[in-house]
Structures are given as structure tokens and as C-alpha cells.
């Protein structure tokens, strides 16, 4: 063997630990989950009682599964949309020059820095029957709202997610705005572009890379959101706030059906893969 070939072989040895770590932390859990989903149960981590596609057929023929998927998309979509609007609005406002700009930027990111369980408990108190939200409505002469009741529970958990999550959008958009060259706006102005035209043709295209990254990350996080929903409504009342994360948890740790819970998780995996695929595709355009 030539010296250079030996050298190359030697180099590969250095890559092995990385491959081993990726295999152990990424590939193995995925393969294990997929394998276990073909079994009825597990005992001490060992799947037993092979049932083939039984778990998949059960999930795909269950109304509860489809309703939960729809509810999760509704929750995720609503949160993402509003967070994008508020985050962009806040970034545009706080990208201007004014006194106290730094302080305002600091205040805006506070919700993002708070632990999820603190946020959940705090909003639980705010939305209590006699909490500040209803006291505020009463003082305005408006009817009070049963925030965690069946009709309002989904809106309430969406509000909580938006409050907690919009600063992430704000920070991303602000960084993106600061990366757009001033000269582009000046050129647009010289061409007689209106504010709206500048926003549409300069700001939005300039924010595109950052927007895609934020949307992809935020969709993954929001889709999987568990803590705030579990701590406030546990997925109820009824199934009003039962998202996939809650259903999977309840199936695994409430109904003691770990393998079926794994199946449910695997069934939503294609959504994430598609999301990542399209986002990467958009990046390369």
C-alpha cells in the first residue's frame, strides 16, 4: 500500500468517533422507534409480541388521530402566523432610531428568556376565572371569558405560545433587517418607491433567508409544544387542546402503550421531513 493510501486510511480513523456518536444519538433511536412500532408492547426496553402494521392500522383508522393532527396543525399554523406578524412588526418598529431603543429591545425579549413552566403557571393565573384577564374585561364593561373552558381553551394556549415565542421572531427579523444594506432603500427611494413598495421589494426579499430559518425552527418547536398545554389544560377540556405531543404523552405514560405512542410519533415524522426538505429547497433557489 502506498504511503498516501495509508495516510488516508489513517484519517478515516478520526472520523469513526463522529459517525459512532451520530449513529448512537440520531440513527439508533429512529431505527429503534421504527422497529418497536411493529410490536404490541415492550418489557424493559425489549419489544415483544410482533403485530406487523397493527399499530399503524389502528392509528390510521382512528378518528381521534386525525382530529388531533388537524388540531395540531391549527395550533401550529395560528401560532406561527401571529408570531410572524407580531415579530416582524416589533422588529420594524424597534429597528428605528429613537431614545430608549435598547431598553425596549431588552424588554421585548423577556418572554423568550423565561422558562416554559414559569410562563405556563403565570398565564394560568392570568386566565383564572377571577384573574387579571377577566378583571380587565370587567373593568372595560365587557363580559368575562372562561379562558380554559371548552370554547376558549385553544385560543388561550395559542395566546400563551405567541407571547412566549414572538421574541424569537423579533430577534431574527431585527438581525435580518440590520443586514439589509441601507443603499438598497436609498436606491428604491430615488426610484420613487413608496414605503409599501420598499417593504415588499427590499425588506421582505432581504429577510427571506432569516424568515425561512425562523419558520422552520419555530414550526418544529410549536408543533411539538407540550409544557404550556400540559400545565394549563392537559389537553382538555374534552379534546379541545389535545395536540400530538399531548396525545403521544398520554398514550405512552397514561395508557401505558409505549409502542403505539411510538407509532403515532413516527406517523408525524414525514411532516417534519417534508418541512425540512422544502425549506432547504427554498434556500437553494
Amino acid at each position, binding site marked *: 500500500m502506498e504511503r498516501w493510501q495509508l495516510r488516508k486510511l489513517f484519517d478515516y480513523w478520526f472520523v469513526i468517533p463522529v459517525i459512532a456518536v451520530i449513529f448512537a444519538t440520531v440513527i439508533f433511536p429512529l431505527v429503534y422507534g421504527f422497529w418497536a412500532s411493529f410490536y404490541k408492547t415492550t*418489557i424493559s426496553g425489549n419489544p415483544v409480541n410482533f403485530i406487523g402494521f397493527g399499530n399503524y392500522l389502528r392509528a390510521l383508522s382512528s378518528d381521534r388521530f386525525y382530529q388531533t393532527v388537524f388540531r395540531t396543525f391549527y395550533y401550529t399554523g395560528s401560532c406561527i402566523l401571529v408570531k410572524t406578524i407580531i415579530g416582524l412588526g416589533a422588529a420594524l418598529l424597534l429597528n428605528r432610531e429613537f431614545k430608549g431603543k435598547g431598553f425596549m429591545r431588552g424588554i421585548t425579549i423577556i418572554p423568550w428568556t423565561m422558562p416554559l413552566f414559569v410562563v405556563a403557571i403565570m398565564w394560568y393565573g392570568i386566565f383564572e*376565572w*377571577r384573574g387579571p384577564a377577566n378583571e380587565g374585561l370587567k373593568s372595560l364593561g365587557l363580559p368575562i371569558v372562561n379562558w380554559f373552558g*371548552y370554547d376558549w381553551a385553544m385560543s388561550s394556549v395559542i395566546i400563551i405560545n405567541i407571547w412566549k415565542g414572538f421574541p424569537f421572531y423579533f430577534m431574527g427579523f431585527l438581525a435580518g433587517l440590520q443586514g439589509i444594506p441601507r443603499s438598497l432603500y436609498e436606491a428604491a427611494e430615488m426610484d420613487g418607491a413608496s414605503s409599501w413598495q420598499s417593504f415588499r421589494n427590499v425588506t421582505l426579499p432581504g429577510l427571506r433567508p432569516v424568515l425561512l430559518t425562523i419558520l422552520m425552527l419555530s414550526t418544529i418547536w410549536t408543533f411539538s409544544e407540550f409544557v404550556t398545554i400540559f400545565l394549563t389544560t*392537559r389537553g*382538555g*377540556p*374534552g379534546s379541545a387542546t389535545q395536540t400530538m405531543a399531548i396525545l403521544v404523552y398520554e398514550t405512552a405514560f397514561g395508557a*401505558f402503550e*409505549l409502542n403505539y405512542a411510538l407509532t403515532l410519533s413516527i406517523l408525524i415524522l414525514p411532516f417534519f421531513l417534508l418541512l425540512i426538505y422544502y425549506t432547504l429547497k427554498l434556500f437553494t433557489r
Partner: protein
Amino acid sequence: MKSKHMMMAATLVLVLALSTSASTAQKPNIEIWGVSSFVADVNNWVVHKAKKWGTKNGVEVKVSLFPFGQLNAKLIAAIEAGTQPDMCVQGWGVGEWVNKGLLLPLDDVVDRLGRADFFKHKLIENQLRGQIYGIPGFFELFMLHIRTDLLKAAGLDYPNDYEEFAQIALKLTDPKKNFYGMGYSLGRNFDNDCHFLGALFTHGGGYLSEKSSKGVGIFKGESTIKALKWIKDLYDKKAIPPFGMVEIGNNNAYINGVVAMTLNPPSIMYALKHRYPELAAKTKMIPVGEIIDGGEESLFIFKSTKYPELAKDLAYYYFKDKEDYRKNFIEAGELYGLPIFKSQAKVIGDAWKRGEWSEWGVNPYEMLKSIKYVTNPRAYPLGEASPVADRAMMSHLWARLVDAVIFEKVPIETAVEEAHQELKRVAKEVYGK
């Protein structure tokens, strides 16, 4: 010179560390997991008792207490990973774990403690296939907490059954003042599950009569329909507040003076006595309908323990001094839980006769003798622990059924049929037929 000193110090530290670890390694060790009670004294008792036994027997004991509702999630994950503790104190899921062949039978411990002194119906909540797999911690009775001042002002007497309970609730409801007769937990929580089971059993129903999927046929009976109608009727007539959506919803509603009555374990009374003595003085706890015992928390030992005999001895030690158990566990919690031993319940009953524990409208000892139902893991009317009971409760099947009828406006018969199908599937999985 300096480096020489440092070298000596480092060597000394190393030798000390090695000798410490060596002595620790020689000691047997027992790991205990449990549910953290809202009563600090009870938690202290659980930890202190284990440590004391450990010191006496030269055993390293580690106790970890987790918040209510989290223990099972941790246990399931640990069991899958093979890292479960040696034993659980105030743990859940005996039916499920026995079904998976994970627990040790504890009949010998029960015999050492005096089998005859246990309330039989309490002891057999952890019985499967004729063996006892868990020692129950306490009774946790769903008592009707009732505002005596409001009852008196309205010229009403205590309810004797669910019919009277509903009538009184309606009479005490005042929608204009946002005041409700009955605090009933709605939403996905264990109180809702227990409230439903109380209504179900009181109306003569059950959910598992034999160890097969056929055994859940009983759930489709008229009693289930009646129980749901009873709840729905009260909700539709606005006798139940719409905001009791979380575990402590009905507790808070009662403590805040928004409801006249609610069914709950005496944790409400504990809070009232400690924080709202005026309201405590106006509150009585009485039984109504079939009393539900929600105290499924039990001590159990995993087969995987390296030290089964030591663990059993610790289990025995926990309850050996029954007076200590009564004073520092039961009475420290203001009778939030009632004792599992007849001898200790009798002491409390005698004290009640002397005028102590006057918030109890009836003699607790006499009442314990009349309990028929334990919510979990004992399935009714099967009469022994069953994973079907565990799974139904832990996945909030009962609460989801009530919510479907109340909020999602699903016709009662349809909702019952859906719940029945779910029960049937679970029973088939558990019993294989």
C-alpha cells in the same frame, strides 16, 4: 517544596475518596421513589423513616419524591431503561406492573403486620390472582364538603343520596351572583375521573365484571347513562361552575366561596384549617352516595431489586409502629388520608366521639367499614386490581367521556359506546380475550 505539599495533599484526598467509595460500595443500597405529598410532615415521615431504617441496618437508602402525576411517567421510562428503583412508596400502577411480571408479592409482609388489622377491602385493592402486591398507604375518601351556614339559611338538611344532593345543589345555585350549588371538576383531570366513578357506582354501574373484553359489557348498561344524565342535567341547569377545568378547580372554587358543596378528599379541609379557619368552621364533611376511595397510592417492590428481603423489611418497618404511622402520617395530614389499619382508625373514631375531628360529619372509623369501591387499581365489580382500571384512569377515559357529553355535545349513548369500545380494546389487550 510547595509542589511537594500539593502532591501529598492530592494523594491524601485520593486515598480518602477511594476509601469512602470502597466503604459505600460495600453497603447494600436501596432506592425508593414516591409521590410528594402536599403535606410536608408526611414527606418528612416517608424520608425519615427510610433513613432511620437504613442507619439501623447498615443500608444506604436514597429517597426521591416526585410531584403528583409525574411518578408514573418516570417509572415507565425507568422500567423501559431497566433503571427502576427497588421500591415505590405512595406509587401507582400496581395492576399494570404485576401484569408485566415486575413486582414481588408482599403477602409475607402483610402477615407480619397482621393481616386481620387491615381493612380487607383496602388491602385487596392491590390483589391480583390471589396475591397482594402492594401495601396501600391510606384511604383518600371523596367526602362531600358542605357549607353548613348556607344550608341552614336555606332551611335544608344534609343530602342522603345523589337525588337529594342534586336538589340541594340546584336550590343553592344563584346564577345572578355567579354562585353554584356544586363544585364538580370538569376537564382532563383525576377529580373529574373520580367524580364520574362516584356517580357511576352510586347509580349502580360498573365497568369490568370479568377478566376479558366481555367483562366491560356492564359499562354499556343503563346505570352509566343515568350517571351521565345526572351530571349533564346539573351542568345544563348551571348548578356546576363552567370554570372547574383543572385538577384543583373545585378545590379553589370551594375555598374562594364560589360553590356551596363539592366532593373531594379532605385536602380542602386541610387547606381551610391552615389558611381559612373561618370557612373551615362553616364546613362539614359528610358521605353521600357510594363513597369513592381515591387513595390508590401504595408501597410496592420491584422484582429487579438486588435486596428483596431488605426491601421487604423496610416495607414492614414503615408500618410496624402503627401508632407512629397514625400520628405522623395520618394525623399530620389532618386526616387528609385515613389509616389502613382498623386499630388506628378506631383510635380516630374514639377521638371523634370525644369531639375531636369535628369537621367530620360522621365517625370516620364507621365510614371506613362501609367503603365498597376503590377507584384504582381495583376494577369494579371485578373486585381485584386490574390494568384496565389503571389505564382508564391514567388516560382520563372517564373525564374524557364526561367532557364529550358536556362540552362536545356528543349524545350520551354515542359517547358511552365510544368509551365502551376503548375499554373493550384495553381489556382485550390486557387479558388476551
